[in-house]
């Protein structure tokens, strides 16, 4: 059963009708509905192209958060062979919002890290909706250290609404953990590649995405604050999220212009949720190219490249 977003409702109606017709035809043999049904299919297809051609920033946010998009776990399952999960921060706990481990990417051993949101109620609660606590960032730090020690490239898959705002998280030093994780990203002498696969939520994303190369999926977002949060602060009305999404310039396309992301991986028509395997494959190819481009650089150069990338940000705006 397909999950439709609010703006896809007209599409749901047409596709629903086509399905209904076909179901009806199955009950009686003399009915021939294929002509009508395929006309509806065609109409739905056109509408889908139309809807996704010019997604508004707010609609992009909805697509980026779509529950059926491939998540961190899907990418790990498909793209990394011999994956062995590694757990815990050695201090307090293992954070299930953060997946991390060692595996092979096209034979090359790598460390892979990412936030996992979960796919149903049970797993979403288990994963804390992809919102990491300090343990998650400390696990990331530990695995990045491991990568650095054994000269393994690091791939991070970013998909989080943000760091978890909770009592325990604050008491155990949420801000310090994020700051140290960002710091670690900047210190390791191995290639670090980040892919924003869905939602790049604020500091919780930065702690994973301070990379040599930042790749974004076509309909992913990356923002300093959620549109809802921004609307409630600046507009004093959380319902103004459309305006806030517009103003924040959080789409992959705008971030490419600002130099915050280096390249965009195209999604199939109708978003990654309508072509999960194609999307995962495209992301894999993109990682491969970027890894290749960073091959042969020594530690110093990799660190210097990463630092310079961030120091240079802000030289171009969107208005000038």
């Amino acid at each position, binding site marked *: 059963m397909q999950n439709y977003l609010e703006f896809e409702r007209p599409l749901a109606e047409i596709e629903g009708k086509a399905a209904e017709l076909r179901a009806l035809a199955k009950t009686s043999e003399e009915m021939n509905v294929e002509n009508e049904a395929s006309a509806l299919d065609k109409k739905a297809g056109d509408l889908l192209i139309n809807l996704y051609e010019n997604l508004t920033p707010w609609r992009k946010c909805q697509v980026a958060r779509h529950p059926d998009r491939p998540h961190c776990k899907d990418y790990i399952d498909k793209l990394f062979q011999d994956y062995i999960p590694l757990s815990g921060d050695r201090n307090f706990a293992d954070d299930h919002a953060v997946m991390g481990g060692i595996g092979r990417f096209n034979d090359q051993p790598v460390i892979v890290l990412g936030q996992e949101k979960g796919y149903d109620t049970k797993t979403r609660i288990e994963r804390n909706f992809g919102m990491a606590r300090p343990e998650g960032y400390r696990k990331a730090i530990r695995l990045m250290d491991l990568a650095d020690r054994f000269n393994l490239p690091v791939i991070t898959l970013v998909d989080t609404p943000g*760091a978890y*705002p*909770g*009592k325990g*998280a*604050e*008491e*155990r*030093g*949420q*801000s*310090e953990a*994020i*700051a*140290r994780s*960002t*710091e670690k*990203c*900047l*210190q390791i002498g191995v290639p670090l590649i980040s892919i924003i696969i869905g939602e790049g939520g*604020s*500091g919780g994303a*930065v*702690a994973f995405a*301070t990379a040599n190369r930042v790749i974004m999926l076509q309909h992913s977002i*990356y*923002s*300093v*604050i959620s549109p809802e949060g*921004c609307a409630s*602060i*600046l*507009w004093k009305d959380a319902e103004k999220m459309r*305006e*806030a999404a517009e*103003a*924040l*310039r*959080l789409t992959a396309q705008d*971030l490419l212009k*600002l130099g*915050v992301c280096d390249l965009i991986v195209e999604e199939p028509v109708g978003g990654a949720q309508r072509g999960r395997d194609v999307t995962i494959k495209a992301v894999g190819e993109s990682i491969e190219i970027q890894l290749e481009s960073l091959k042969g650089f020594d530690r110093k150069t990799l660190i210097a490249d990463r*630092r310079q990338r*961030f*120091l240079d*940000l*802000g*030289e*171009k*705006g*969107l*208005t*000038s």
Partner: protein
Amino acid sequence: MNWIANYVRPRINSLFSKRDVPENLWTKCTECGTMLFHRELSQNANVCPNCDHHMNISPRDRLLTLFDNGKFTPIEIPKPINDPLGFKDQKKYPDRMKSAQKKTEADEAMLVAEGEIGRTKMIVAAQDFSFMGGSMGMYVGNAIIVACKLAVEKKCPLVLFSAAGGARMQEGILSLMQMPRTTVAVQLLKEAKLPFIVVLTNPTTGGVTASYAMLGDIQIAEPNALICFAGPRVIEQTIREKLPDGFQKAEYLLDHGMLDRVVHRKNLKEELVMLSRMLMGLNPAIKGDLPKPDSSENNE
């Protein structure tokens, strides 16, 4: 001319102008509500003499109390592009900037200066909470980069006073990118083996806490300062329960191992000097009165 022009009109005018005088002369302590006379308050570095509450202090006043004889050289910060996103909420970003500049008489939310504290060369960066909530945008990022590079060049410690609601939303992702940018700057300082001392003041929250403000070699906070990543209101909405007393206050963080020290503003200067000199391997500072600014200049 006549008595109306000479006497009545000035009286009427003075009636209206007098109205704002008491507001300037008296400040209400935000904690205990005591009305405090401005001179008394400023002599006490904006700490309430009644309840010891540490009120906000402008970067300028902060530096005046800190540097020897109040003498320091402000450092120029490279100006970033103006309004990079063309951001508009209910107000345009450039208009918000203008009114903040008018209100604070400052260019932006951070002041960087160079000088001597306890006869020890230091770079000080102070964030201004009254300037758009001290928010961290590209200017603040540039200021921290300049401060770190200058400390490396002059081989001296950097003392940073943080005060901010977080990142500046009006600069969108570019404000978020100040987290890694400022972290790079702090790394330059650390690689040069120079002390980075952070003094967290009320309030320090969000992306600021989650980057340079938590990366100090020594972490000091002013008493009762709110220090957190997510603010108490956000947490209460998320977990729907009352938070304990003093949650996210400096003393609470000290108890939870997040800080080295909570230091009263009046003792801060002495402690910063002692710490810096020990970390730099210098002799103890000479105690006692420092030479007056005029006499030392005359001697030279």
